[in-house]
């Protein structure tokens, strides 16, 4: 009797309904995210059946020919990997430098405006970077850098395959894409690294200073080793952004499947080949192959992001009493 009236009150309050609504929405959200992977898996079935693992393995770079029904993802996977790696190599020192400056050195009055500027750098729409890349940045900076690389590293026997020129006069190339990616991932790496620095307990700095270390020695010998896994996480997060970046890269990489591995030549990335060809893919096998590339991209970015989150979380959870 008493129990029943409790139950009645419970329902009249509406809390069960509220809880049900929240749980339903949360579950729907999980289903949505799972469904993205599931749909890509299903819609790429045709391509997976036709090519199997051959789709993924390295081959001559021009094995992507919609007219002949020949599809292998390697050319675009190569493009994605090489542009992202070059971007990471260029972006890491700059980003860590910014993070050090923002967290450790910069005077307080400058901190807020600088933080805003770095965030603005991240907020500029990707198409705007692309437009600026095509008409301003590539013809000047990328072309001169490309010519310089072709004349120096391009002559070194072991590196010829990577740096042989000439770079197109438009600058549309893997190198150009790497440069634009560098600009786009710097804010991500810098912001996360800055937070890692800020999460390191004060005692670490004070102990090192008390032992007579200079400011730089505190940063280099104490803070960076202390936050190492966090910085690694920041870098991997930047890598995730570079791997998935679509529009700016599509606009500046030249979108071509010519058979060259060189950084100075045009190419494709996984994201750019989908952006460029999916709307025009008439044949079922073609669109299915693009779906499979989407699936691979989804898988890789998933892996990369999960790894990054775990690393960053390990530093911030080690901080006592925060």
């Amino acid at each position, binding site marked *: 009797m008493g129990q029943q009236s409790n139950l009645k009150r419970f329902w009249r309050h509406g809390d069960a309904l509220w809880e049900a609504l929240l749980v339903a929405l949360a579950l729907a959200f999980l289903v949505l995210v799972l469904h993205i992977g599931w749909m890509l898996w299903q819609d790429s079935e045709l391509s997976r059946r036709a090519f199997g693992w051959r789709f993924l393995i390295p081959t001559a770079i021009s094995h992507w020919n919609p007219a002949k029904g020949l599809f292998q993802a390697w050319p675009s996977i190569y493009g994605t990997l090489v542009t992202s790696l070059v971007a990471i190599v260029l972006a890491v020192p700059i980003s860590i430098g910014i993070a050090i400056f923002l967290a450790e050195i910069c005077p307080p009055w400058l901190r807020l405006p600088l933080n805003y500027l770095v965030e603005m750098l991240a907020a500029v729409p990707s198409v705007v970077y692309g437009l600026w890349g095509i008409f301003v940045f590539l013809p000047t900076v990328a072309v001169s850098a490309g010519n310089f690389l072709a004349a120096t590293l391009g002559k070194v026997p072991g590196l010829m395959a990577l740096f042989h020129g000439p770079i197109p006069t438009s600058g549309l190339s893997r190198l150009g894409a790497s440069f634009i990616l560098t600009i786009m991932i710097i804010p991500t790496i810098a912001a996360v690294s800055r937070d890692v620095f800020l999460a390191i307990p004060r005692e670490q700095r004070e102990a090192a200073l008390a032992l007579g270390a200079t400011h*730089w020695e505190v940063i280099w010998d104490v803070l960076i080793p202390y936050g190492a896994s966090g910085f690694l996480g920041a870098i991997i997060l930047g890598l995730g952004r570079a791997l998935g970046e679509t529009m700016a890269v599509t606009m500046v990489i030249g979108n071509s499947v010519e058979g060259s591995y060189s950084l100075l030549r045009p190419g494709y990335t996984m994201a750019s080949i989908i952006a460029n060809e*999916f709307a025009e893919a008439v044949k079922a096998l073609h669109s299915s192959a693009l779906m499979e590339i989407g699936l691979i991209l989804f898988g890789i970015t998933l892996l990369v992001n999960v790894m990054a989150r775990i690393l960053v979380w390990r530093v911030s959870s080690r901080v006592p009493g925060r």
Partner: protein
Amino acid sequence: MGGVRFEHRYTYRKAVNIIMLSTTGLLTLLALIPLFWVTGYVIVKGGRYLDLDFFTRLPAPLGQPGGGVLHAIEGSILIVALATLFSAPAGVLIGYYAARHPNTPLGMGVRFATDVLSGVPSIVVGLFVYGVVVVRLHTFSVLAGGVALAIIMLPTVIRSTEEMVKLVPPSLREAALALGAPEWRTAISVVLPAALEGIVTGVILGVARAAGETAPLLFTTLGNDNFEVIRLAKLAIGVGASPWEIARLILTQPVDALPLTLWKYSQQPYPERVNQAWAIALVLMMLVLGLNLMARVWLAYRRRR
């Protein structure tokens, strides 16, 4: 002897200190060069081609000067509004759930899924919405674009709601419960309003991100040079359509958006189109950077109080 060596060592260490510390400052400047370069160029170049026609007319035929991008402005507004409608209420409730149940399997699942979704490349979201919405409706549409951008916005909304709800003092919630308010009433009239400013900021940041996205729209809205809401509505009223039918007609049209049009124009050999691409870039930058700056400055200001 030892003292001299120590002096040397000390000078060396001081020099390294100064050089490296100033290097970090220089690197910060270096990274900001592209920001000023892009912004400056877009303002100078885009400002020159921005006029009233740009906002009020449909595109001129290819190769002819004049015309505007009214179709893309209307398209962007509709798509982003729809995306906000889809993602904001759901995202706020999901974020509230994640904040209230941080350690249950579902709560952890939601937080994990939020991280995953924010890392999914936007082009993949486009593929997904193509498969789920466009294929079923048999047409590229405003609706599909709205769904795609809603998925892009969701992680931002969920995460900011979660963080803001966590900042609301527990005593506030307990006070409401102690007065006999049920859990749902407490959430809607006490906890969420207390976190409202942060939540709104999160939604604005989501809108800013969605408004600049191109990749998810490539195969969901496709593009449509003749999209004009008022003309469509007049046409539909002319044949006696009900409001429901008018809405359906508009939402199932292929449509352009500002970033999408910018991308298309940048690929065209006509100088008029490229010039307009710069003007679109200026409008987009003002919109996106303006929203961003507004949201962040406001939040920082409120936090300090």
